C-alpha cells in the first residue's frame, strides 16, 4: 500500500502519537489539561488575528543564529498566511485543501494539493494547531509539563511512540500575560539545534484583507 510517501514525512516531522497518560503539572500548578482547556477557550474567542513574529534559528549548520522576521495572518476556521520578510521574502498561504507558496528566489507561485503532499500536510497541520489555539489536541501527541501557571509556560515533550521524539527534545510555549495567545515558542531538537519564535504586536479580530492571504501581495 502507498505508505511510503509517508516515510519521508515520518522521518522529518513530528507526527502525532497516542495518548498514554494524562498531562503532568509541576507542584503548585494546576493540571496542564485545565490550563490547555482554558487557553483553548481564550483562543476560541477571536476569529481573525494578525501578528508579527521573529524567528531565531540557532542551528549547528549555521555559523551564527539566523533571524527571520515576518507576519502571520489567521482567519478561522482554516486560513493561515505566513509571510517572511527578512532575510528572504517567502509566503505560504494555507486554506482548506490547498497550499500556495511563493518565494522571491524563484518568483513563482506554486499551488500544492495537501491530499497529494503528505509532508507539507503534516507540517501545516502542526502549524495550524499551534497558531489557531486548538491546544487540546496536543495532549494526544505530547506529555505536557506546566512550567509556570501565570503567565502560562508549558513544555510539550513528544511521547515515546511519537516519531517527533526522535528529533524534538521538547517544545516550550510561553503565553501572553492575558493568556489570549502565544508569546514565544521554543523548539529544542535532539541534536541541540534550537528555534525561538517570538510573537509581537498581536491584534485580534481586526479586519483582514484578501491581500493578506495572497502569496504575492507584496510584489
Amino acid at each position: 500500500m502507498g505508505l511510503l510517501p509517508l516515510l519521508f514525512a515520518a522521518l522529518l516531522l513530528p507526527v502525532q502519537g497516542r495518548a498514554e497518560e494524562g498531562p503532568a503539572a509541576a507542584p503548585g500548578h494546576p493540571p496542564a489539561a485545565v490550563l490547555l482547556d482554558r487557553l483553548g477557550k481564550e483562543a476560541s474567542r477571536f476569529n481573525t488575528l494578525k501578528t508579527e513574529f521573529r524567528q531565531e534559528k540557532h542551528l549547528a549548520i549555521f555559523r551564527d543564529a539566523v533571524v527571520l522576521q515576518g507576519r502571520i495572518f489567521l482567519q478561522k476556521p482554516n486560513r493561515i498566511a505566513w509571510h517572511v520578510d527578512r532575510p528572504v521574502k517567502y509566503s505560504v498561504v494555507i486554506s482548506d485543501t490547498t497550499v500556495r507558496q511563493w518565494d522571491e528566489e524563484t518568483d513563482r507561485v506554486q499551488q500544492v494539493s495537501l491530499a497529494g503532499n503528505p509532508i507539507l500536510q503534516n507540517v501545516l497541520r502542526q502549524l495550524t494547531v499551534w497558531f489557531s489555539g486548538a491546544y487540546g489536541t496536543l495532549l494526544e501527541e505530547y506529555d505536557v509539563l506546566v512550567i509556570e501557571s501565570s503567565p502560562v509556560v508549558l513544555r510539550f515533550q513528544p511521547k515515546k511512540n511519537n516519531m517527533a521524539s526522535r528529533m524534538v527534545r521538547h517544545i516550550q510555549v510561553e503565553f501572553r500575560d492575558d493568556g489570549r495567545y502565544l508569546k514565544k515558542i521554543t523548539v529544542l531538537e535532539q541534536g541541540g539545534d534550537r528555534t525561538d519564535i517570538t510573537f509581537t504586536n498581536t491584534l485580534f479580530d481586526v479586519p483582514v484583507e484578501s491581500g493578506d492571504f495572497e502569496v504575492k501581495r507584496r510584489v
Partner: protein
Amino acid sequence: MFDRQASRLYDVLEQRQRLLLRTLLAVLVLCIAGLFFFRFESSMDDILPKDEVISRTLAFFRNSEVTGKVVISLGLTDPARGTDELFAAADRVAASLDRGLFPEVQTGLSEAAIVEDMDELLDRLPAITSRDDLAGIERRMTRDQISQRLRSTYLQLLKPEGMFLGSLARTDPLGLKGLALQRISALSSAMGYQVTLKNGRFVSRDNRHTMIIAKSTVSVIDTEGSKRMLSSLEGILSTLPGFVSADVIAGHTHSVSNERLIKGDVAFIGVVASIGFLLLYLVIIRDVRTVLIFLVPAAAILISINIAGLLLGSLSYWVLGLGSTVAGITIDYGTHVYFAVSGRSDPGRYVKHVIRPVVFGSITTVAVFGAFFFSRIKGYNEMALFSIICVVLSTALALFVLPHLLVRSGARHSDFVDRAALVLEHGDWSRRSFVIIWVIATAALSWFAFTIEFERDIKRVDGTEQSILDAEQRFHGVWGGKTMPAVLVVAAPDYQQVLELNEQAYGAALRAVGPEQVTSIAPLLPSARTRQENERQWKRFWSPERRLKLRTLLAEEGAVYGFSEQAFEPFFAGLDRGSARTTDAPSALSSRFVQKTDNGFQALTFFPDREELLDAMSGVSSGVPGSYLVSGALLARRIAEDVSADLKVMTVAAFVFVLALTYFAFGNVRETLIAMVPPLTSVIWLLGIMELIGMTVNVANMVAGVLVIGLASDYGIFMVFRSRDDVKAGTILAITLCTLTTVIGAGVLVFAKHPALSSVGVTMVVGVTAGYLASMLVVPYLCGPSSARQAGEVRA
C-alpha cells in the same frame, strides 16, 4: 440381439419385482442418510481449466499477503465528528475481534518501525549506490552545482517545512539520500493504494476513514468457517456508533455470497421446478401415477450424489445446481415408458418397444457427458461423472422398475391427454413449408453463430451479491487500488538467490519496457554480491582527494549562506559507514516485494497489467529461471483460450460420439444424418440467438450447450425410430412432455440469481426448444411419407 437381451432382462426383473423394489427402498434410505456425511463445496476454482498459468495464478493469490486477510474500512458519516472518535471506534472494534478467528489485528503501522526501516535504508547508501549513481554524484560536485544546492538547502531551512531539517541537511549536502528516497517513493505507486498515517493509524486521503487489517485463521474457501467469521464480525460492527460506517473487504464475503446465492437458487429451482412438474403431470395429465415418473430422476439423483460423493470425496454445489437440469433430462425416460404402458393390459410388450430408443437416447446422453471428460475443467469432469451415473440409473429405473409400479397403481390419464396424443400422433408434421422456414432460420442464425464471443471476465459468472461489490467500490473510492498491477514473480529456495534473480529480472524488465513501467525492490535491496561490489566502488570513489575537493567547495560556497565550517562534518563521517545493519531478513518496507513461501522465497516486480507490456514481460520471464507472470488480464486471456479450446474439443467429441451411436442404432447413413438434424439445429440456433440477445459463451453455459446436443439427439433418435416402427408408443406426446419438463427445469434456472446458473437456463431453454422444433417439424419430412403412412394406432 439387443432387443432380445433387453427383453430377457425385463422378464427376469419382472419376475423378481418384489425383491427389486425392496432393495431399491433400502438403497434410498441409505442414500438419504449418506447425504449427511458428504462435504459440499462452493469454490469457483473447480470450474476453471486445469492449466499451469491459471493454477499458478490462483495459487499465487491464495498464498499472497492479501488472501486470508480481512480489511475493515471505517468511515465518519457525520461531518461534525472527528478522527479521534473514529480511532476510538476502530480501537473498540479491534479489541473486540475474536483472537481465535483473527490472531493478528493491525490498525496502522508503528511509526518507530518505519523510521527504523528508513534509517536502515539510508544507511545502506554505499550498498545501493551503483556505478551509474556514482557518476551522477560526480556530476554534482562542481562549484556551480554545489552553490545551487547549498542555496536551495538554505532557503528550505528558512521555510516552515525546514523546521526540523537542520540535522538532516548536515548529513546530506549533495542530496544523496534523495536517491534512496526517490526509489522508495517509486515503490509506493506499485499497488495504486493511497494510504497515509496519522497517530500511527491508516488514514485515507480524505482524512475521514481509517482501516483495520485482520489476518484470519479461516481459509477463504472454507464457507462454513467464513460464515462464522463474518457473523462474528457483523455482531461487532453492529455495535458501532451511528456516525461510523463500516465496509468489510475480504475474499470470504465472496465465498459466502456465492454459496448463499447458489443455495438459494437450488432451493428456489427445486421448489418451483417440482411445482411445475407436479402441475404438468397431476393437473394436465391428471394421473396420480405421474408422481412415479417424477420419482425416477429424484431417486437417481439421490443415489448419484452418494456414488459420486464416494468416488470424488466431495461434491460441488455446482453439480447440485445443475442437478435440476439433469433431472429434467432423466425424467424423459420415465415419460416415454409412462406413455408406452399407459392403459395397456400387457405393459411388457410396449415397454420392450421403447427399450431400444430409450436406451440409445440414454447412451447418446451418456456419450455427450463423456465428452466432458475431454475438458481440463475439473468441475466439468465431476459433473460428467455425476450425470452419467444419474442417466444410467434413471434409464434402468424407468425401464425396469417404473412399468411395474404404473401397472400396480392402475389409474389412467385424462381425456385431455388422450386428445392431445391423438392430435400429436396423427398430425401432419411432414410439411415442406416447415422445412423451408427451418432452412431460412438456420441459415440466418448460422451467420450470427460464428461471431459469438467467449466471456473473458470470470467475474461476470461470479455470483457475488451487489452489496459486496458496492462495498468494494466504496473501498476503492476511498483508498484507491482499483486497478491491480501485473506481477513478475521470481522464486528461489534461497533468499540471496532470489535477490540475484530479482536483479536479473529487473535489469531485463528495464530493457524490455523501460523504468517508468516497472516497480521493483531490486535497486533498494540488491543481492549480497551486488551490495559488496557497490560498497567497494563507493570506497574507491570517496578517495581522500575527492573528499578534500568537496570539503573545500562546501566551505567556500557555504560561507555565502552563513554555513559554518563544520556544517557538513556529519556527512563526511557517514561516508565510511558500512552495511553492518544490513540483514538478510526482509524488512517491513520490503516485505511486500520479497516474501517467504513454503518453498523458499519469492520476489515481486510490479508493472501495469496491459497486453503490450504482458507480451514484453513474458519475454523477460522466459529468460529468468524460476519466474512467472501473474496477471488478471493474462488469467482472463488464458481462461478464454482454454475454455474456447475445451468447447471445441467437447463439441466435436460429443458430435462424434452421438454420430457413432446414432449410426450404431440405425445401421444406415440416411437415418443417422436425419437423426442428427435436431442436435445440429440446436447448436446453430443456440449460438445465433445468444449472439443476437447479447449473451456470451462462458465457462458455465458451455456445459449446457454441449448437454443440448445430447438432448436434441435423443429427440432425433426417437423421431426416426418412430418413422420406421409400426407401433406408435406415444412418441410425439412423450417428446413434447420431455421438452416441457426440460424447459420447466431449465426455465426456472433463467430466474436464478447466480449469473452462471441463469445463463445455463437460457442456454438450455433455447437449445432444447430449437432441437424439439427440428425433431417435430423437420425430421418427419426428411424421413419421408412412411411416417404419415404408418401412423396407425396410437392407443386403443
